[in-house]
């Protein structure tokens, strides 16, 4: 609560009162303390940076986490490890705030890791469920792998720019005269300039956290965690850290086209890919997870298509905007899902249907969320999405097409979800305990409000690439197409899932392979299993262990054995016969004679 209030106040203060210096939002570094000095100028300085995006994230994180805290009061009631749960939750909030506020690329890496571990702990909260454990492991290891890239990226950036401080890095590497800039752009590895390498690696880190292709596999499994957690971490905050990271280093990306291309295409691909999969999933949380993924894809390519400064910066603004709105409606959706699961005790759609009369409030909230995400005006999603589409349109038609399609699919699967939960067949629940406590309702209400209103925030006033004001023009004509598309998709879903019927089955049959592939998430898990189990374990680790046991250690034992063998085989010398002794004695003398009289004089 306090956290939330504080951060909202900060935000207000920043944006309204003293943030503006001659019409530009400066980045204020509030605190700076040398935490670890690495020599020759490089050091980790713990600091707090306030600039538009960080403040925006501040708001998002604190509000959502507050909601989740409240929600959990009801949701987690009666858990034996209630307190532990909250401890973890707070740990997460702490590290997330630290992440968004950090002023130092290394500091962000540290909180990055901390976020990862708290997500690990929360996913594995039901630790006696093997699936949960597996999921948590998966999440951590995959993100860890991505972080490897991030780390190396940090190393490169840090040493090329001679500093780890964001502002310094950006300032040094963006002015084209500075020696650092020249060094990093001229120096190249495998024919690619170091800067590209660095940014790509950093982006890999971001992609890992934000579940971009192909590092997304952990996100759906992460739904093993308690639903509020999914709402907080895997919808609103942590997963957008990747986007945040890219935004943070945006000036660098902006001057490096190659890296930006990668960002764009990865984003676009994941957006559509995830959307397709989402249509086939039956576990509601998984559907939401994939939709999250696709939305983040949105943000990513929005960043990708953006330029730097002034008008070109639209995509950037749009991405941030979408991040902002998405946080609200996606967490809303998740919380609703949580409420539903709380009621039904199952994640599977088949166990649901016609729940609207059991939980009217949830029903409304969920609907709001769906509309928002589907981009139906005047819901929040509409505005942000429009901006993104616009940005995409301005930069490349292909991306625009993808985006458009994706948004259509999004609308479809969201309403598929909606209808099959709240309408469709009637399920009757015995001894159901209402819709849940007040603590569960309030967040839904607040977030619905958010989902409804967040769109009207004049975002481009606050967050732009260069901190300057960006007039946000609104083209009604442009937005016709997407809205129509969304509505048709909703209609389609309505036809298919409003009433219980066999149309879906037919279509599935028609789709055949494609459906199957999508249903099996395009076999990514299998692929990864292949790589880890078969290759890493059987082809690297096992041989390593074997070599160690038999060759390296065998060598040592072999030496010992050999010594023993020698000592066994020469025991004959000690024959116990005096005369042999005398002979050896004499032989020794003769040898000495020969050696030292004739050979080694």
């Amino acid at each position, binding site marked *: 609560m306090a956290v939330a209030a504080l951060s909202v106040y900060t935000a207000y203060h920043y944006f309204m009162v003293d943030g503006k210096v001659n019409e530009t939002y400066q980045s204020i570094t509030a605190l700076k303390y040398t935490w670890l000095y690495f020599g020759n100028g490089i050091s980790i300085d713990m600091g707090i940076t306030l600039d538009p995006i960080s403040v925006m994230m501040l708001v998002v994180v604190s509000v959502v986490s507050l909601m989740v805290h409240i929600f959990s009061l009801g949701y987690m009631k009666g858990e034996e490890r209630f307190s532990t749960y909250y401890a973890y939750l707070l740990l997460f909030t702490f590290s997330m705030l630290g992440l968004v506020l950090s002023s130092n690329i290394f500091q962000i890496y540290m909180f990055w890791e901390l976020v990862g571990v708290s997500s690990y702990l929360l996913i594995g909260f039901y630790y006696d469920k093997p699936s949960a454990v597996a999921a948590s492991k998966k999440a951590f290891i995959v993100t860890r792998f991505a972080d490897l890239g991030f780390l190396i990226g940090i190393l490169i950036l840090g040493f090329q720019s001679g500093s780890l401080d964001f502002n310094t890095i950006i300032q040094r590497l963006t002015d084209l005269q500075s020696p650092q800039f020249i060094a990093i752009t001229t120096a190249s590895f495998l024919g690619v300039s170091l800067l590209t390498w660095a940014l790509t690696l950093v982006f890999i880190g971001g992609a890992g956290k934000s579940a971009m292709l192909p590092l997304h596999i952990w996100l759906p499994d992460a739904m093993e965690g308690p639903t509020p957690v999914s709402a907080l971490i895997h919808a609103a905050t942590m997963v957008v850290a990747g986007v945040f990271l890219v935004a943070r280093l945006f000036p660098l990306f902006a001057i490096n086209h190659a890296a930006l291309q990668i960002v764009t295409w990865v984003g676009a691909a994941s957006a559509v890919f995830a959307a397709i999969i989402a249509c086939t999933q039956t576990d509601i949380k998984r559907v939401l997870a994939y939709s999250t993924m696709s939305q983040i894809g949105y943000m990513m390519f929005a960043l990708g298509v953006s330029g730097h400064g002034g008008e070109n910066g639209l995509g950037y603004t749009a991405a941030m905007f979408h991040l902002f709105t998405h946080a609200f409606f996606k967490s809303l959706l998740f919380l609703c899902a949580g409420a539903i699961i709380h009621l039904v005790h199952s994640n599977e759609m088949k166990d649901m249907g016609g729940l609207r009369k059991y939980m009217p409030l949830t029903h409304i909230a969920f609907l709001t969320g769906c509309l928002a995400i589907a981009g139906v005006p005047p819901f929040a999603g509409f505005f942000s999405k429009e901006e993104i589409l616009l940005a995409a349109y301005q930069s490349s038609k292909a991306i625009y097409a993808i985006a458009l399609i994706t948004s259509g699919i999004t609308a479809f699967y969201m309403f598929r979800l909606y209808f099959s939960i709240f309408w469709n067949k009637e399920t009757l629940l015995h001894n159901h305990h209402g819709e849940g406590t007040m603590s569960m309702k309030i967040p839904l209400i607040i977030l619905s409000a958010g989902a409804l209103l967040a769109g009207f925030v004049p975002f481009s006033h606050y967050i732009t690439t260069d901190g300057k004001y960006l007039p946000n023009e609104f083209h009604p004509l442009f937005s016709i197409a997407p809205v129509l598309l969304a509505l048709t998709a909703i209609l389609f879903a309505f036809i298919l899932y409003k009433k219980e019927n066999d149309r879906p089955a037919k279509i599935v049959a028609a789709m055949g392979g494609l459906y199957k592939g999508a249903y099996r998430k395009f076999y990514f898990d299998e692929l990864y299993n292949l790589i880890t189990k078969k290759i890493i374990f059987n082809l690297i680790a096992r041989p390593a262990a074997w070599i160690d046991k038999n060759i390296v250690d065998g060598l040592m034992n072999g030496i010992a054995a050999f*010594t023993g063998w020698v*000592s066994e085989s020469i025991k004959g010398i000690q024959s116990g016969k005096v005369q042999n*002794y005398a002979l050896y*004695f004499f032989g020794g003398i003769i040898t000495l004679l020969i050696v030292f009289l004739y050979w080694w004089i």
Partner: protein
Amino acid sequence: MIEYLQLMKHELLLAVMIFLFLFLQLGNKKWERSSLLSFINLMLFFNLVAGFFFNEAGMLFGDMFRNTELIWFEKNLLNLGTLIISMQSYHWLMKQDHVIEFYLLLLSTLLGMFFMISSNNLLMFYLGLELSTIPLAALANFDLEKRTSSEAAMKLIMSSAFSSGLLLFGISMLYGTAGTLNFAELSQHISGTPLQIFSLILVITGFGFKISAVPFHLWTADVYEGAPVAVTAYLSVISKGAILFVFTSVLYSVFQPVAETWYRMIFVISVATMIIGNLFALRQQNMKRFLAFSSIAQVGFILIGISGSSPAGGASVIYFVLIYIFSNLGAFGVIALVSALAGKESVDDYKGFYKTNPFLSWVMALSLFSLAGIPPAAGFFGKFFLLLAGAGKGNYLLISIAALNMVLSLYYYLRIIKAIFMDSNENPIPKIHAGLQPRLAIFICMAGIIITGVAGGAYEYIRSLF
């Protein structure tokens, strides 16, 4: 006349004691044995103490007998060792019926060693050598009922006669080429002609036989195993120590002109000795035999010190012998007690020894660590200085071999430790109730092992004698 008393103090004391014991034997008054032993040990103790006073350097009988501070220090060492041994063999002697003869022979060998150490002359050296060898053969036979004992005696007398024959031939050739028996003059006449190298080799083998260096060591194991524990201890510590003293001084003084040559020989011999000794020690099952081989390996290390051919080298050798007396006698003390009171000598018998005799086990452990050269036991310092002296010649091959051999030797010492501390045994050696004198002896050894190393004084003193 007085200077005879002063210079030959050690020898005269021994001679007096020999005759005293002789009369004790002839006088038909039968003594109560334990008191007899205590009396003898007391005498030995006085002898030891007296050894520290009225010392002065000088020559007697023309060039036959010489005494320096170093020499009488060595003699005191030998006295000390003998005292310890005789105290340790208390329980064994209690069962013997030729106690006095035992001491007569023992002391006469000791006397022989003294003469040998003080000898400044090949003749005296030879006589001392024989005097310290022939009675030992008789001593080795002292367990008159045991087959192995007489076998050991036979092997000892035969091989020693053989080796002394070779030694004599060498000496005769030396005499023939140099024309004198006196050490000082010899060193001037030695120029390294082939015949002299030949005789040098023969002399070295003569020594090598005594200190059981490979390949002249083969008698050692059998004799050690067969002989009574006391005699084995005596052989492995006292006689070996005495010979080492003489060996060092002979090499350093007489054969100085051909130092390069004998350095090479010592190098070869010491490598062979270390390796062979260790390799054989690996598989020994009898404690005494095991210690025999371990002592062979030790000789290999000592030879490295000798090969340093510098004051540091000599000092390190004598220092090591000092430590070696304590360490080896510590081990032999335990073995003597066990074999006298429990009649067990095999390594397997020592399994689970710690359960019944913790104190003796620790004594054994400490002694073995000292032998293996593990700090803080004195052996560490001894070995370190030996190798350092050897390294002074810049022959790092030798040092590396030696260092690796230390690892090898550690293995078999730890084998014993393992048997004592870790293995279990259904019928372990019963609790040993040692008499006062053996316990005293063991305490002396322990004190020696701990003090002589860490307190740097001992080495510094020895070094100051060079």
